[in-house]
Every structure is written in structure tokens, then in C-alpha cells.
């Protein structure tokens, strides 16, 4: 049986990808951030996941205003890093897992989640930066990845509760797949940040740290946080945090916190990171 054993949360700031790609991880600005990911990199080598369900959002890359899916799952075999306007990131192609992805799609659609099924998908920094943070700069990514894209760009996004429930449906889907697989789920984006308007640069350490607490200990209550509270207190782009709830919904109610990390800033953004194992 396939099983989700652990969850990762991490911000996915494009500047982090640029720092890795340009060899700047040891400089004064970036070193404190990358130090925060050393635990996860070591831990990951021991975990050896077979597949990652990688929850992220596209940032006007693969999806433009012609078509905005609320939730999309990618069932293709291989995904190229996208050219976001300055050439594709120099990272390996991402290998999918069509059979498991199709199985998940079938299961969650029958559980009343109205997924869009995508085959061809160029993946942007939202997906590739977390891979770089966890795996460094390998020739090939060490495992398969199923991209799950969430709309957080065009309002309304799905509610936090809907995301949390999708996590639970994903777990059920994985557990009904009859290959033996060690599966992880990653929730990416956030933490507090606002990239636009006179309020750009908003960072809310209190909100972020409360979120880091609650997503561990009281996720069901946290899932009820309305959109407005994210926007108001965590910045217009802080709404990305709803993607962490999908990850959390797919884990046990009780989890062990193997690592917790919080850092300000990466470019315009507060960076948060968790490594969670099912208890």
C-alpha cells in the first residue's frame, strides 16, 4: 500500500532559486536562510521518498487569464522547468508518476473535488525552488513528483477549509493505491508577504509564528481562518499559506515536528519551513 509518511512546508520565493542557481548560498545575506534547510536535506537522504505530492501555485506562467483552474493535478510523465521571462532555471526536468496521479484524480473527483486534469505543464519557481531547497543541485531529482496546482492568484481562491479537506481526500486516494510507496506531501508558498501597492513589504512575524504553531497543533481550527484575515494580516500574497493546509490535511491529526524554521527576509518575503512526520 502507498502511504503518506511525512509533510514538508516551505516558502518558494524566486530569489531563493536565483541564489542557488548563482552560487550565492554562502554569502552574508543568504547563508542564514540556507542554514535553516540543512536539517531537511540530511533528513531527506534518510527518508528516500518514492513520490512527492507537491502542492504549489503557478504564478502566471503555465496558466494565464484564459484559463484558471482552482485545483489542477498533473498526470504527465515529465515536466519542464518554465521560462518565467529570464530563461528556465538550470534544474533537471521533473519526472511525474502518471499511474498514481491518474489514480488520485479518479479518487478525489469521485469524492466531489472538481479537479482539472493536466497533462502538459511547465513548472515554475513555485515547484522547483522547494525541490532545490530539499535536494540541492543533483543531476536528476531523486524521486518522482506529482504537481498539484492551486489558484491563489485570481480571487476567490479556494477556502482554507476546502484545502484542508482536499488534503484528507488526497490521503485516502494514496492509501487506496496498491503499490508499496513512501509518499510525501509538500505544501509551499507563504509566509507573510505583499508584493504590490503602497503596502508592499508587509511582514507579520506574530501572524506567521502563530500559523506555524497552529498548523501543527490545531489545524482543523486554523482551516477556518477566512481569506480576509490572510490578506489583511499576512499580505495579499500571504494567501499562499492555504496550500500548507492541503499538506496538513493529508497527515495524521498528531504529528512530530522534526524541524521548524522562520527567517526574514528573502527578498520581499518571510520564509517559513516545517518538517512533519506522522505520529
Amino acid at each position, binding site marked *: 500500500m502507498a502511504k503518506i509518511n511525512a509533510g514538508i512546508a516551505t516558502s518558494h520565493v524566486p530569489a531563493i532559486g536565483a541564489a542557488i542557481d548563482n552560487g550565492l548560498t554562502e554569502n552574508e545575506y543568504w547563508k542564514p536562510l540556507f542554514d535553516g534547510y540543512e536539517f531537511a536535506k540530511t533528513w531527506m537522504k534518510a527518508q528516500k521518498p518514492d513520490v512527492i505530492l507537491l502542492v504549489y501555485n503557478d504564478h502566471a506562467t503555465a496558466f494565464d487569464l484564459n484559463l484558471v483552474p482552482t485545483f489542477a493535478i498533473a498526470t504527465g510523465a515529465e515536466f519542464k522547468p518554465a521560462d518565467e521571462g529570464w530563461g528556465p532555471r538550470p534544474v533537471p526536468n521533473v519526472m511525474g508518476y502518471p499511474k498514481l496521479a491518474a489514480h488520485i484524480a479518479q479518487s478525489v473527483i469521485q469524492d466531489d473535488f472538481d479537479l482539472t486534469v493536466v497533462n502538459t505543464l511547465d513548472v515554475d519557481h513555485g515547484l522547483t525552488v522547494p525541490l532545490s531547497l530539499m535536494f540541492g543541485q543533483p543531476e536528476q531529482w531523486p524521486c518522482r513528483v506529482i504537481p498539484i496546482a492551486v489558484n491563489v492568484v485570481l480571487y476567490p481562491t479556494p477556502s482554507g477549509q476546502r484545502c484542508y479537506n482536499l488534503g484528507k481526500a488526497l490521503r485516502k486516494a494514496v492509501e487506496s493505491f496498491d503499490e508499496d510507496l513512501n509518499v510525501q506531501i509538500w505544501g509551499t508558498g507563504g509566509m507573510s508577504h505583499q508584493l504590490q*501597492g503602497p503596502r*508592499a513589504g508587509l511582514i507579520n512575524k506574530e501572524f506567521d509564528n502563530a500559523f506555524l504553531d497552529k498548523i501543527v497543533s490545531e489545524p482543523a481550527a486554523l482551516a477556518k481562518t477566512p481569506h480576509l484575515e490572510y490578506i489583511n494580516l499576512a499580505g495579499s500574497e500571504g494567501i499562499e499559506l492555504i496550500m500548507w493546509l492541503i499538506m496538513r490535511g493529508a497527515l495524521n491529526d498528531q504529528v512530530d515536528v522534526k524541524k521548524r524554521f522562520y527567517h526574514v527576509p528573502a527578498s520581499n518575503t518571510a520564509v517559513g519551513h516545517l518538517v512533519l512526520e506522522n505520529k
Partner: protein
Amino acid sequence: MAIDKPYKKVPGTTIFDADMASLGFHLNQFCMSLMKAPNREKFKQNEQAYLDQWPMSDEQKAAVLARDYNKMISLGGNIYFLAKIFSSDGISFQAAASTMTGMTQAEYAQMMLSGGRAPDSSNTLKKDN
């Protein structure tokens, strides 16, 4: 419309909802065209001529030419789309963000290094709003 839009009241913030997306459709799709290198070349050679290929309002075109990001946002631009413009210009997200705040790039960078813009009663809604 009877759907409440309380997010309209968050200070210094524009939420990209369907109304804004409808207003900014062509502006944002123009931005998407800049993801292709040949289009970036054409845009750089003659910005006005390139913009004139898109059914955008004169106000939207003027805001692009002036790189007035707050104005573009008020006219339906979304920051992830507008990012294609400042990426074409070779400008970082942080530099672009600073132009919207009335701070210099150095002041903004320093604010971020010092922990970012703290939330307070001037830049957030009160609980009961």
C-alpha cells in the same frame, strides 16, 4: 452585487478579483507575451508600437510606458503578470516592489532587512471591519 467584498478596504492593497481581471485582461495578456524572447526584443525596440498591437486603453499603455506599477494595478494589472515587464527590464522583484511604496530602493531594502513593514493600525483593518 450582493457578494460582500470586504477585501476592497484593506489599506494599500488591491485584490485581483474577477472585476479587476476583466478590466486588466489585455494588459495582463500583453505581459504574458513578454515571456518569449523575440517578443521582449520587439517590445524593447519600440514599446509604443508593441503596445499598440494590444486592445489596451491609452491609460493602461501610458502606465506601462511610465513603469507606474501602482497605476497598472489600479487598471487591472496583477503583480505576477506585471513581473514579466520588470523582468524584461532586468529589474528585481524587490526593486520593482519598492517603486510602489514611495520609498527609494535603498530605503525599501533596508526596511526588509530590518524585518519588513510591520502591521499596524494604519495599514491593516480593525477586527470589526
